[in-house]
C-alpha cells in the first residue's frame, strides 16, 4: 500500500526544539532520523541518540524525495558539523511498485515455466466478485525459457544449454531492458545454473542489473521466490539511482559521513548497499515506527507491547514480545505480487481519520474502509467533502480543537457546522441525534481497531491484558483510550513525539540481515554437526556483510531460528534454536512452541525442519537510559477548559503537552494537545508522565 498517513490530521510544517542540558549532549554522537512518507517528510534530530532535540515535518517531494529530505535538514537547521549519522526510512520502493514505475525487466526461467510469475498459485483478487486482473511486473513477451532441469535435492537432471542461453541473451537485447531476473526451478537447492546464466548474460548485456532468485532467497516455492526476485530486479535500478542521488545531495548539503537506510525487517542497511537490498526496503516506514515503539515500550518497562499507528486512511498494528517486533516471513505487496522476505509483521485495516461512516442497506452503521483521503478530506476541512468521517465525529464531540486545526496550512478553523450537518444527515437514517451519531461512529471504528488488536494477541496465544498499547500516528492518541478499554489492555503509552515516531525509529535501530535456506527434511534425520555447519555458514555470511561496511558497531549479535512444522503441515512455526542443538532438542523446542501457539501438540507425528534462519545484527552504540520513577507532582493549570462529549458534555481540562513534566498526573476527562497530535484521556482514566516523557494512560 502507498502510505498516505496523516491525510486528515495533517501537521503544519513545524519545528520543535527541546531545551535540554547542552553539556550532557556534547559528550554524545549527534544523529538525524528522517522518514520520507507519501505526504510528509519527518525529521528527528538527537544529540544523544534517544532524546529529541528537534523534530520537524515538511511536505514530501515525490518527484525527487531527496529534495524534501534535504529541505527537512535545512528547515530544522541541523548542525552538520557534529552530525555522525543520517538514518533514513523511505516509501520510494513501495510507491514505485504499486504505481508500476519500476525498471523494464526480463525474466529467464526453466523451460516450461516462464508463466509461473503471471499464473501465481490460482486465486482471485477478491473473495467475492469475479472481476479484476493482475498486472505482472514482467509481461509475457519479456519472459524467456532455457533448457535445464534440477530436482528438489539440487541434482542436475538436464544440463544447461548454454547455446540457448546466448540466444535468449540476444533476444533480451531487443527488449531494451534495464534488469534481468533469472529464476530456475529448485535453484535454492543448487544455484549453479542460475549463476552460469548470470555470467553469460553479463557478457551479452554488461549494463543489465542481473538478479538470480537464489541470491535473493534460498527457499522453495517457485512462484513466491520468482516474484521476490522480480521485485528486487524491478526496483534495483531505481533504488541504485536514488541511493547515488541521495548521497550526492547530502554531500552538497555538507554531509559525507554514514547514511543508513531502514529495512522492512526493522534493521538498518548502509546506503551504499541499498541497491542489492531494494526488495528489503518496501516496508521501511512502518517498520521504523514499530521499531521505535518497541524501544520506547521496553525502556518504559513494558516487555510486551502492541503498537498502533493510526493515520488518515489506515490503522497499522503489530506485536512486540520482549522488545522484539514479531517478524513475518512474507507479505503480498499487490494482487499476485508476494514478497518472501522477513519483515516486521504489520497488520493494516482501513480505519483512519478519513474513514467514511455510512449506513448499509440493512440499516446498520458502518465505518470505512472507504476513506475521504486528503482530498476532499473530512467535511470539516471544507474542501467539498460531504460524507461524515471519523475526524468529523471527533470534531463534533469537541475532542479536537476547531480553532487550532493541527496540520492544515491553509485553514484557520475547522467547519464545525458543516460536520454537524453531515452528522445529522447520517443520524436521521438510524434515529440518532448529532452527538450520539458521532459517538456511534467512534464506537464502530474503535471496535474495528480493537478487534484487529485482539485477534493479534489472543490468537497468538497471548493475553492482551499483559500488553501495553503504544499508540502513535496523527490520529492514534485520539482513539487509543477507547482501544485499551475495549481490548482490556491496562496501559496506553503515548510517546513524546507520536507524529514523527517513524523518524525516531530510524535513529534507534540496529543493522540487520536475515539469512535463510530451505532444508525440508525430517528433524530426526539432521545431525548436530550438520546443523551447526549450516548455521555457521549463515552467521558468517551476515557478519561479513556487517564488517564489509565502515559503519561502527559495538557488537555483532546472532540469533538462530528453525521454521518447523509437523510432517504434512504447510504453515510453519518459527522456533528459536541455539547453535549446537541436536535434533532431539530442536524437536522439543518445536513442541513447546506448538503448544504455546495452539494449546496442544499433535502427539507422535514427526516434525520437519522446513528452513533455517539466522538473524545477524550489528548492534550500534545506544545510549542506555535507566531513569528512576519520578516523584508525583500535580499537573499544571490547564491552558483552557472546553466542553467535550463523552456520553454527555463534560467540562474538560485542555493541557499543552509541552507543559507536562515527568511525574505529573492528569485526571480524565482531559485533552492533551501538542503540535503533532491530540491525546484523549477518557473520564475514569488517569494519565501520568513517566521519566522518559511518555504519557501512560490507565483506567482508574
Amino acid at each position, binding site marked *: 500500500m502507498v502510505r498516505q498517513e496523516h491525510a486528515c490530521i495533517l501537521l503544519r510544517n513545524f519545528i520543535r526544539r527541546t531545551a535540554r542540558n547542552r553539556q550532557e549532549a556534547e559528550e554524545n554522537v549527534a544523529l538525524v532520523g528522517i522518514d520520507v512518507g507519501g505526504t510528509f517528510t519527518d525529521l528527528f534530530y538527537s544529540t544523544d541518540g534517544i532524546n529529541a532535540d528537534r523534530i520537524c515535518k515538511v511536505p514530501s517531494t515525490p518527484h525527487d524525495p531527496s529534495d524534501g529530505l534535504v529541505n527537512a535538514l535545512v528547515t530544522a537547521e541541523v548542525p552538520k558539523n557534529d552530525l555522525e549519522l543520517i538514518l533514513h526510512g523511505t516509501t520510494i520502493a513501495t510507491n514505485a511498485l504499486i504505481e508500476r514505475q519500476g525498471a523494464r525487466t526480463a525474466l529467464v526461467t526453466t523451460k516450461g*515455466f516462464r508463466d*509461473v510469475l503471471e499464473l501465481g*498459485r490460482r*486465486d482471485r483478487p477478491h473473495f*467475492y466478485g469475479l472481476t479484476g486482473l493482475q498486472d505482472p511486473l514482467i509481461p509475457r*513477451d519479456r519472459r524467456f525459457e532455457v533448457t535445464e532441469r534440477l530436482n528438489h535435492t539440487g541434482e542436475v537432471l538436464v544440463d544447461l544449454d548454454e547455446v540457448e542461453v546466448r540466444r535468449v541473451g540476444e533476444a533480451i537485447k531487443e527488449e531494451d531492458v534495464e534488469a534481468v531476473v533469472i529464476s530456475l526451478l529448485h535453484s535454492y537447492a543448487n544455484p549453479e545454473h542460475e549463476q552460469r546464466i548470470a555470467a553469460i548474460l553479463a557478457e551479452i548485456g554488461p549494463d543489465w542489473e542481473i538478479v538470480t532468485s537464489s541470491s535473493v532467497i534460498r527457499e522453495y516455492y*517457485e512462484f513466491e521466490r520468482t516474484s521476490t526476485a522480480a521485485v528486487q530486479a524491478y526496483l534495483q535500478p531505481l533504488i541504485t539511482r536514488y541511493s547515488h542521488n541521495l548521497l550526492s545531495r547530502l554531500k552538497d548539503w555538507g554531509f559525507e559521513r554514514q547514511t543508513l537506510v531502514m529495512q522492512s525487517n526493522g534493521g538498518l542497511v548502509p546506503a551504499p548497499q541499498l541497491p542489492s537490498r531494494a526488495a528489503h526496503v518496501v516496508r521501511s516506514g512502518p517498520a521504523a515506527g514499530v521499531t521505535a515503539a518497541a524501544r520506547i515500550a521496553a525502556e518504559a518497562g513494558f516487555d510486551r507491547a502492541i503498537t498502533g499507528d493510526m493515520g488518515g486512511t489506515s490503522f497499522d498494528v503489530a506485536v512486540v514480545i520482549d522488545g522484539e517486533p514479531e517478524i513475518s516471513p512474507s507479505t503480498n505487496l499487490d494482487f499476485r505480487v508476494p514478497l518472501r522476505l522477513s519483515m516486521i509483521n504489520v497488520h493494516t485495516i482501513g480505519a483512519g481519520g478519513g474513514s467514511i461512516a455510512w449506513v448499509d442497506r440493512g440499516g446498520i452503521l458502518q465505518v470505512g474502509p472507504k476513506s475521504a483521503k486528503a482530498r476532499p478530506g473530512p467535511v470539516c476541512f471544507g474542501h467539498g467533502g460531504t460524507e461524515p468521517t471519523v475526524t468529523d465525529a471527533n470534531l463534533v464531540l469537541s475532542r479536537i480543537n476547531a480553532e487550532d486545526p493541527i496540520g492544515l496550512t491553509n485553514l484557520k478553523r475547522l467547519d464545525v457546522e458543516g460536520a454537524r450537518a453531515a452528522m445529522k444527515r447520517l443520524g436521521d437514517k438510524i434515529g440518532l441525534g448529532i452527538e450520539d451519531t458521532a459517538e456511534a461512529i467512534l464506537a464502530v471504528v474503535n471496535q474495528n481497531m480493537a*478487534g484487529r488488536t485482539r485477534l493479534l494477541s489472543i490468537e497468538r496465544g497471548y493475553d492482551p491484558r499483559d500488553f501495553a498499547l503504544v499508540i502513535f500516528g496523527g490520529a492514534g492518541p485520539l482513539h487509543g483510550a477507547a482501544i485499551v478499554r475495549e481490548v482490556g489492555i491496562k496501559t496506553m503509552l503515548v510517546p513524546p513525539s507520536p507524529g514523527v515516531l517513524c523518524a525516531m525509529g530510524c535513529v534507534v535501530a540496529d543493522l540487520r540481515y536475515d539469512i535463510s535456506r530451505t532444508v525440508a527434511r525430517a528433524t530426526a534425520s539432521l545431525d548436530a554437526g550438520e546443523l551447526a555447519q549450516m548455521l555457521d555458514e549463515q552467521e558468517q555470511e551476515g557478519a561479513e556483510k556487517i564488517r564489509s561496511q565502515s559503519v561502527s558497531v559495538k557488537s555483532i549479535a546472532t540469533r538462530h531460528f528453525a521454521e518447523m512444522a509437523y510432517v*504434512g503441515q504447510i504453515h510453519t512455526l518459527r522456533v528459536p534454536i541455539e547453535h549446537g542443538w541436536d535434533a532431539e532438542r530442536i524437536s522439543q523446542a518445536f513442541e513447546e512452541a506448538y503448544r504455546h501457539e495452539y494449546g496442544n501438540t499433535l502427539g507422535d*507425528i514427526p516434525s520437519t525442519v522446513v528452513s533455517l534462519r539466522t538473524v545477524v545484527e550489528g548492534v550500534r552504540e545506544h545510549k542506555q537510559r535507566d531513569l528512576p520513577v519520578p516523584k508525583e507532582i500535580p499537573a499544571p493549570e490547564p491552558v483552557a477548559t472546553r466542553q467535550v462529549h463523552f456520553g454527555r458534555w463534560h467540562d474538560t481540562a485542555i493541557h499543552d503537552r509541552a507543559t507536562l513534566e515527568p511525574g505529573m498526573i492528569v485526571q480524565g476527562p482531559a485533552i492533551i494537545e501538542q503540535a503533532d497530535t491530540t491525546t484523549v484521556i477518557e473520564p475514569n482514566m488517569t494519565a501520568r508522565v513517566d521519566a522518559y516523557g511518555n504519557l501512560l494512560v490507565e483506567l482508574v
Partner: protein
Amino acid sequence: MDPVTLAVVRGALEQIADEMDLHLIHAAISPIISETNDCAHGIFDAETGETIAQGRFGLPVFLANMQFTVQNLIEHVRGHGGFQPGDTWILNDPYRCGTHLQDVVLIAPHFVDGELFALLASTGHWMDIGGSVPGGWAPQAQDIHTEGMLIPPVKLYDGGKLNEGLVAMFTTNVRLPSQIEGDLFAMANVFTVGRRGLDALINRYGRETLSACVREMIDRSETQMRSYIEEIPDGTYHYEDFLDNDGIEDKPIKVKLALTVDGSSMHFDFTGSDPAAKGPLNLARSTTQSTCFIALKHIFADVPVNGGAFRPTTFTIPDGSIISAAYPSPVSGYLEPIGRVFDVVIGALAQAIPERTPAPAFGTVGVVTVGGRQPETGSYFVAVFPYPGGYGGHFRGDGLVNGTPPVSMANFMSIEMSEHRYPLQFDEFAIREDSGGAGKYRGGCGTQYRFRARSECVVSALGDRMDHVPFGIAGGKGAAPSRVRLELGGKDVALPMRSKFEKQKLLKEDTLSAASPGGGGFGNPLERDTDAIERDLNLGYISPKSARETYGAVVTETALKSGRKRYKVDRAATDALRARSEQLARAS
C-alpha cells in the same frame, strides 16, 4: 434496537467466526485445509439453525450449505435426546451435509447458564476417507459406499467424553491415519475459540440483549438482500447447460433453470433437469441452493452471510434429479454439477442484468488425484491437483488468467513443493494460449500442465467441459474445451469418458497432461479494441489466426533478429474490414 450495540455485536460475532476459521487453517495437518482453506466455520441459531455468522476465510461452497447441515442435524438430534453440554456431533453423510464424503462436519452446542444458546460448526476436508480411490474422488463410483466411509450423525464427544472407539474406526479406515487424526482434533479444538468469544459477548451484553441483536441483524440482512433483488427487472429467465457425461454412461446431462424475479423475491425452478447420474456427478439439494447464493454473492458482494440473506429465495428442485442427490447416489464428483448450476444462474442473470454479470469461468474443477507409495519409505501418499482456469469477460474488462473456481478459494500446489512431497516431476505449467472466449472483453486464458511419474503410481481424473464449453454472453464466444491426455509408455491412451478416468497405472516416465478452459467472452469480438488485440497477440494470449478470423483484425507481423515475431494491428484497415463483414452479414 440500539444501533450502536447492533453494529458492534454484528462485528464481534463475525470476528468470532473468523477466528475459528484462522485457528483451523493454522492448526490443520492436511494441506487442503491449511493451504487451500478447504473448511468453514459458523455460529447458528439453536432453534432454527439459521446462520448467525460465518467465517470469511473458509470456502464459499459452504456458504449456505452449513446452515442446511445444521438444520438437518437439529432435526436428527431432536429424536436422539437433544443437545447436551459437552457434546460434539460428527457427520459426513452428504445427503445431509450437501457436498462429498471428504467434508466432515463437527457441530457442538453452546450452553449459557445451563440453557442452549447457539450451535457452533466446523467443516473440514479430510485428505482421505477410505473408499476405492485415494483422496476420495472416485470417477467410476456407482454408489456412495464405493466412495468411502459414510458417517451418520453420531457423538464424537458425549458429555465431554471422547468416543475413542469412533476415532479408532476412522483412523483404521483411512489411508492417512495420522493426518486425519491431527485434523480431527484440530477441528474439535476450534470450538474452544468460539465458546470463549460468545461467553465474552454474553458477559458484556447479557443473553437477552445478545439474542435480540441476533434476531435483529438477521432481519436486517433480509432487508438488504431484498433491496438488491428489487434492482433486478421482474421476469422469468431461462437457461440450460450440460455436463459431458457422468463417467459411466457417455451421454450429456442437462441442468435447467427458470429463474423468476418478482419484486424482492426470487424463485429458482430447476424442473426439467435430468435424473440422478449413475456416476459420481450428483449434487445434494442443499449445495444446489448454496451454489445459487454464491452466484448472487459474487454479483452482490456486500450482502452479509447470515440466515436473513437466504430468506427471500425459494426453490423447486425435483426429487430424483441430478441436483438433489439421494442415497445411494455417488457424489464425489459434485464439483462438476456445481459448476453447471453456477453457470445456469449466470446465464439467466446475464439476460436480466448483463451490466453486472460476468461470463462464466472455466467451469470444471478437473481434479487429478495421484496416489501410491513413496519409493523411499513405502508410506502412502495422495496428491490432489485441481484445475486452475480463466474467468469470464465482463461489462468492464477482460477475464482473469488462472482463477480459482468461483465456489472455492483453493490454490494450486507449488511445483517445487509437490516435487518434494510426491514422486512426480513437472514438465510444464503455462498459460494456455487462445483458450479464453473471444469477445469485446475477452475471457481469461486457461492453463496447461504436464507431469511425469518418477515411480509407479495410480492417477484418476474427474473433469468436464470438453463437449460443452464455457459459453459467452452478450454476443461473446465460448472458451476452448478442457483436455486431458495420458501417455503410457510413450503412447496416447484412449480415454472413453475423455475427462474422467479412474486409477490408471503410471509407470516411471509416463505422463499426464491437462489443459483447462478459459472463461467465456463478453460482447461481440468484432467490437474489441484494436490495441487490445495487438497486445494480446504480442503477449501470446491469442493466435494470429484468431485475431484475423474471430476478431476481424488486419494483422501484420515482422520478425526480429532473434526470430521472435512482433505483431501490429492496422486500425483503419481493421475498421474497414469489420464494416465490410458486417454489411455482408446484413445482406445475407
